[in-house]
């Protein structure tokens, strides 16, 4: 298991984190299956987009 997870790229680690946190939040905050699915999809995409956006904003400062 160590080899599987230690070899994750930055994006894969972000996707795993987003997936798990979004699923937990969806089950904590919504009661209906459809509402949960919508919330999960929205939160998952928002996690990815915001992280990638912040990454691009920080890119000029890394030079």
């Amino acid at each position: 298991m160590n080899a599987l997870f230690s070899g994750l790229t930055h994006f894969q680690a972000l996707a795993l984190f987003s997936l798990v946190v979004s699923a937990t939040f969806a089950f904590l905050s919504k009661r209906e299956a459809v509402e949960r699915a919508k919330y999960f999809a929205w939160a998952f995409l928002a996690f990815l987009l915001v992280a990638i956006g912040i990454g691009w904003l920080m890119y000029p400062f890394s030079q």
Partner: protein
Amino acid sequence: MRTMDVNEAVNQERSTGSSALGIGAAVAGWAIPGLGHLLLRQWGKALVYFLCVGGLACAGLAMRGGVFGGNSPDMFDRLGFFADLGTGGFYFLAHTLQSAGPDVAHASGDYGTRMFATAGMLNLLTVLEAYEIGRGRRA
């Protein structure tokens, strides 16, 4: 009439819970993620919470993330300790599960540290929910 029905339903829902059940579910949920909901017969939530919290904690350990100890003088390390402690049983099994030890010099180890702490915080949220359900304040 409709308002009366809603109020009756709410009162009936509240009366089904008890303080002992809430505390029991919270302690069980802290020790093993999802167990509190399992005791409250919420099978789906129990499975999802166990897989999410347990999966994130195991991923964090497998990525060789650090686990904070409780005797650090640094305030942020102490906050990390409380976050890690939220994983319950996974915190006490961390050294067994992570045979290679932490390696936070690499990015994956640093991510692992955050993932393990996040698993603890998520579990604390599920524990609060289990407590509320046990008390009958939430369906």
